[in-house]
């Protein structure tokens, strides 16, 4: 290979290296929350509370004792003493009691059921079949696997799928309403000249600046008067109040970037304003419209205060409210299920972004270069 060929290769390699080195800190910064979310969702609770272990990866043994993570099976104080009968043998898998509708007993004390507190493997039986077990006594030990899917299994016991469905349906409806209202509004404000044009534009923007934490009280009266409280219609109706102003302003910029001559030519050729909008302007600003749709969807998907106050029944909740209510109980945070919910809950948004990435980038950079 000639020296000049090596030089070309080296220059290319150097460029690639410089690009990756430059990109690496940004990627680490941007992806770390997702990494943390994923790793936490797969860690056993014992690992989460083990401050001596490496927090950035899984640990198989307890940092304090050096022993594998385990969980004692303690006879609940509410049970009465009696002879024990084990239903499973040492080495058998156990299923946490709250991840099944009718969890199987791992043992019986008289006619009282003993359930497994965690997913794992029965490692040791301290009180064998036939002996008397007492309340508060440790009767066995379960080895806890790490990493584990236990937190994802727990989600199946909650109305997680229903919350996701509500969020998706609400998001889709809000996007539709937002576009139907914001596209003509933005076009009118950007292109048509009429008295008050500028003032109306500013007024629309100002409505976006009022935070939902102030608006939720008057809105709840509105929702109550319409008798749509506790239905997803309350959200479909209220979310456009912040998505429409935001998207109108976003789209105004896109409409202004379209050369006037294009419209003038269409009008000259006999097209009406609506025809011009539909056949000439909208295809040109399609990337902007998709950008607005993505923003409208994510804004409604993550909204919390309206969803909390307008909907009180568990089955009609949106994902953010459902997760918070079900997995944060006073000062007890169900970290694993919370992170598992966050991982699964982010999937629709990730898919949406992935499918429309080219449009989105094109929309975000429109007007950046003339």
């Amino acid at each position: 290979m000639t020296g000049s060929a090596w030089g070309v290769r080296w220059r290319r390699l150097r460029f690639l290296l410089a690009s990756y080195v430059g990109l690496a800190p940004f990627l680490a910064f941007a992806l770390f929350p997702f990494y943390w979310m994923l790793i936490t969702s797969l860690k056993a609770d014992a690992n989460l509370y083990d401050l001596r272990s490496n927090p950035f990866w899984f640990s198989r043994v307890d940092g304090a004792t050096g022993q594998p993570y385990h969980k004692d099976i303690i006879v609940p104080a509410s049970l009465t003493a009696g002879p024990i009968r084990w239903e499973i043998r040492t080495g058998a898998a156990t299923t946490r009691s709250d991840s099944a509708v009718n969890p199987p007993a791992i043992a019986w004390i008289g006619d009282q059921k003993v359930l497994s507190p965690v997913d794992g493997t029965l490692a040791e039986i301290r009180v064998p079949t036939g002996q008397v077990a007492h309340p508060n006594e440790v009767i066995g030990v379960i080895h806890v696997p790490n990493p584990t899917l236990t937190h994802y299994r727990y989600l199946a016991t909650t109305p997680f799928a229903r919350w996701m469905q509500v969020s998706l349906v609400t998001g889709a409806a809000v996007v539709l309403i937002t576009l139907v209202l914001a596209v003509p509004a933005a076009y009118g404000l950007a292109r048509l000249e009429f008295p008050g044009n500028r003032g109306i534009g500013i007024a629309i923007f100002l409505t976006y600046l009022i935070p939902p934490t102030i608006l939720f009280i008057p809105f709840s009266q509105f929702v109550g008067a319409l008798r749509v409280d506790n239905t997803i219609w309350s959200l479909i109706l209220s979310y456009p109040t912040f998505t429409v102003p935001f998207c109108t302003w976003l789209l105004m910029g896109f409409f202004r970037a379209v050369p006037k001559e294009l419209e003038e030519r269409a009008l000259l050729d006999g097209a009406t304003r609506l025809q011009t909008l539909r056949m000439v302007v909208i295809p040109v600003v399609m990337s902007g419209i998709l950008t607005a749709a993505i923003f409208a969807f994510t804004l409604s998907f993550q909204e919390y205060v309206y969803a909390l106050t307008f909907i009180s029944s568990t089955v009609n909740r949106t994902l953010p409210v459902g997760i918070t209510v079900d997995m944060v109980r006073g000062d007890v945070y169900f970290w694993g299920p919370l992170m598992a919910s966050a991982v699964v809950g982010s999937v629709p948004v990730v898919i949406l972004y992935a499918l429309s990435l080219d449009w989105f980038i094109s929309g975000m950079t429109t007007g950046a270069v003339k």
Partner: protein
Amino acid sequence: MIEHTPRAKRGAGRRRFLRRSLAAGALAAAPTFLVRRYAQAQEKTLKVVHWKHFVPDYDKYFDVFAKEFGEKHKCKVEVDYVATPDLPTAIAADISRRGGHDVFMLNGTGSWLYDQILVDVTDVANRLGKEFGGWIPEAKDVAVVRGKWLCIPHWYMSFPWIINRQYFTQVGEDFTDKTTWEDVRRIGAKLKAIGHPLGIPISQTPDSNDNLVPVMLSYKAYMFDKNGGIAFAKKEIVEVLRFGAALYKDTMTDEVLSWDDTSNNRFIASGKGSMICNPISAYRTAAKDQPDVYKNLEIVKPPIGVQGIRVGGARTMSYGIYNFSQVQDLAKEFLYAMNQEGLRGMEASTGYNHPYLNAFFKKPMPVIGHEPKLELLQDYQQYVKFIGWPGPMTKIATTMYAKFIVPTMFAEVCTGRKTPRQAMDDAEKKLRAV
């Protein structure tokens, strides 16, 4: 070229465009306005807004109780659960639209805060008091406003002290019923030296109030008089702030200045901490996730302050009825029924729920009477005090809690930003401005 287009025609085009845009918008929004919720079923419906309990099984129990109540009274009971910090928001929304629920839970507040929208439930309180041996005296502080019971205290959550006995033994010390706050400071310094500090949140988190207010009360550092008026016991408050700063310096690390309500749970369950003040959730969390640490944990009585005074903190849980409820009589029956079976709730909560009615203190109490390490909680009512003591739980007392006036006062002194006198004067100013 456009200049040749007739103005009138262009104007008509714009107007047509605006008209059509408006029509399209109205058409899109119309279905949402046409929606009407179907009329409620013929049977009465009682709607309750409730927090999510620490213990998931308590919610399951409460659903069963609500169903049984509905069957007995031929009505439908709907219980809506919300996260603890979101409860005030849900209540505010109900009050704003004058609907949504009939019964609501007052978490950590007295009925004074909502006295304008609460129904008088004195008849229910008297009935319960008569049937169940009377109320503990503190119940009135929570519920009675101008001589009327406006809510029914249902249970309170105790804030006992949880110690890791192994570390106390390691430094050659003991924790007994006679241990004072000064002892805690002395022992805590030794514990900190071996890497196991104490953990009292001194930050803007509710647990911080529930930890620090009992310390103040055990030093007679009162902020209110018996009628609920602001009356700072200045000499005692300065003294307790000085003690607090010394306790912080000698026994804790600066992480407590940024704690939230979950921090002390992790602190003790991880094996790092030697002593915290928290509901038994921290103890239960360790039992669930860190069995080796749990073995060494013990529940102990709060340390003693001046003149032998011992004060245990607590967060109150009560239920009230909105005055715009259409089913007030049914709601009253519901409140009665809830308290009538207080011990069943205590059992479902695995010992979190402490009753207010004397008949329920008969030993052994459910769960805590059967778990050796929790047995002493059966006497917690002997030294429990609520926010606002020695006065009732007034709006100002609740605001003091909500605005974290006490934790701020301690934090300012502990970090050296203010002298005890300055911090106290500022706290008084803030409180008087409410």
